[in-house]
């Protein structure tokens, strides 16, 4: 095989890892029934945290860990608020999105203006492959957990019908917090890869904004299924990473090319809802519904 072609395909590794992990983290959390609109905000914070932490520790690894932890805290908060209180998921999600955008700038910009160094993961073909393998393994673990373990069944139950789940013996609050922590940890990890491996250019304000939504679209296009998301993440990552090549082949304007991932996401969503895929890959029935335990009267 042409070595240029290999580089083309595998070079997408870090991008793939970033989007894929964020997407499955998002999917995991939403499977527990919480509408996750804060994803872009927390992703942006994750990028900022990864940058700063890596800089001060000197290794990219610390950046990833820090980002993971901060994101997980957000996840726990969102899970707690939406389950304990009858709060609109959409409202809290968008609010935290704004907060995230702002906090990211507060965290990273002052430092950026004073320090010029950049710490990143190694960037070579070996690393590229490493990222792909690592994230796919994580994806497989998530899939196993969701489909084969009691915890996974509990998470899905909370997402389909938290009232019935509670009657069946599930502690809905506990389960949603776990989903929030694990899901957002993955999002934080993905965000850190985005900065530390995919675009380790000097940090600029607002870095990462909009990428969370791409991951959101990736997850939706694959019906929130951890393994199917490999496919959609790969396609999106290739489109984004190799857009110049695509442009050349198809003769499209660069702007149209940038649109393609989003158009693809819309098309994918429509395809689900009109095909029998709907049953298997449908959104969790209780997604976004306020969970309020009223005294049930006759």
């Amino acid at each position, binding site marked *: 095989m042409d070595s240029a072609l290999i580089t083309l395909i595998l070079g997408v590794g870090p991008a793939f890892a970033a989007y894929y992990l964020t997407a499955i983290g998002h999917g995991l959390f939403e499977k527990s029934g919480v509408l996750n609109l804060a994803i872009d905000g927390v992703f942006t914070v994750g990028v900022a945290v990864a940058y700063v932490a890596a800089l001060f520790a000197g290794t990219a690894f610390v950046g990833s860990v820090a980002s993971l932890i901060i994101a997980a805290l957000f996840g726990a908060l969102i899970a707690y608020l939406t389950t304990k209180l009858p709060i609109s998921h959409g409202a809290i999600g968008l609010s935290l999105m704004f907060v995230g955008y702002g906090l990211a700038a507060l965290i990273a910009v002052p430092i950026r203006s004073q320090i010029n160094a950049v710490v990143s993961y190694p960037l070579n073909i070996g690393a590229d492959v490493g990222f792909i393998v690592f994230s796919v393994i994580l994806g497989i673990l998530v899939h196993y957990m969701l489909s084969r373990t009691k915890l996974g069944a509990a998470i899905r139950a909370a997402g389909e019908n938290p009232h019935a789940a509670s009657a069946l013996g599930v502690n809905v609050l506990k389960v949603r917090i776990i989903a929030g922590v694990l899901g957002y940890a993955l999002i934080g990890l993905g965000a850190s890869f985005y900065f530390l491996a995919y675009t380790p250019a000097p940090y600029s304000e607002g870095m990462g904004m909009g990428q969370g939504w791409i991951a959101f679209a990736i997850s939706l296009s694959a019906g929130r299924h951890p393994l199917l998301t490999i496919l959609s993440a790969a396609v999106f990552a290739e489109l984004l990473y190799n857009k110049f090549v695509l442009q050349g082949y198809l003769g499209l*304007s660069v702007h149209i090319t940038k649109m393609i991932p989003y158009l693809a996401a819309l098309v994918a969503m429509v395809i689900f809802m009109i095909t029998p895929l709907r049953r298997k890959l449908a959104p969790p029935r209780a997604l976004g519904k306020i969970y309020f335990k009223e005294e049930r009267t006759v």
Partner: protein
Amino acid sequence: MRLIVTKRVKPLRFGGIVIPFLSIVIGIFLATLALYGLAQVPPSLVYGAIGQSLVSPQMLQTFIMLTILGVALIIPFSAAVWNIGAEGQIIWGMISSAFIGLSVAVRYIMVSPTELPKYTNMPGMFVLPTPTVSGAYAVEALTMSPGAAISLMLIVSAIAGAIWALVAGLMRAYLDIDEVATTLIMNYIAYYAYNFIVYGPLQGITISTSGFGLSNALHPELRFARISTATTATWEGVALMIGIFVAAWFVLRHTTFGLRLRILGSNPNALKAAGINVRKYIVAALAISGAIAGIVGTILFAGNLYQLIKIKTITTPPTHNIGYTAILVSWLSMLDLRGIPIAAYIVASLFQAGINLQSSLGSVSSGSAMISSGALTYVLIGFVLTTFTVLRVFSEYSIKVVRERG
């Protein structure tokens, strides 16, 4: 320790005023904490910036646009249809009104440099400031009266915004696809389409615009009239704001359409049993919302920018993300039309505060001075909105903390 949450029979008295007010106070406090703790921004600067913005004429334009957008969003929000795509709808409004203003309402006359003086002061002619690639100068000549042109711009932008929103509406009504995701994704598509058009069909023809991602400048007679030199607000903008507000008031309070939209938000089942086609209402709510947002695009283009400027980074569109801040306005107003102007005033002030704060940071530490006004606004708005979302629960539910008896 357990929380017992029970639904109130009557909403909290004065909750409609106390809760937004409290959220603002607490939210600003939290924001100040974050600003100080993370970026060493002195709280005094924050309060100063906010105080200043409450009375600054510069925020008037933002206030006008937020009021209109607040109305635009209240219509679908009352029906529990969440239009997060105002950004995209505004963008298409800008594009379509630019299309009218720059290529339908005017024609271009190519003039050699020697003939230029003849046209420089001719009424109705607008000479583009820099020459074209060929060396000739381009002169914009009106093809219709300014009144007709502006009316056309408004109509076209409303239609464009409505169509853009309609897509998401149809997907929700007939395919049950969540409109939050679709309207959001369509924002990004709109951004890229905008850039495509700015570099393509509406590309400027002079050496300073061609290839630079700028369109031609709008003919002065098509521009909205500024109220005064101290502000970017325009008379047309004010007129539109009042007109749209009154129209919305009428529709929501005095037509069956408005009434049923509101019932759709609280009890869609009763509506279905009454024989109403709920799907049509969902689509209509989004279309109307998009139309109004589209009009805001014209206000931006013909009132402020006068030309289309490329989007450099996805985080700094020409709308300054007003489509998102408008969501906060609708939310803060507790979906009551009367609350919109007040909420718009507050949010516009916070927006302006971000700008003021940014400029005052220059005199303090050099690190935080690099933070954009947008980010500062996000901090302020974000904390207020989060606090509001949590406190709002209290207006409809009473929460008691109970010690678990061992």
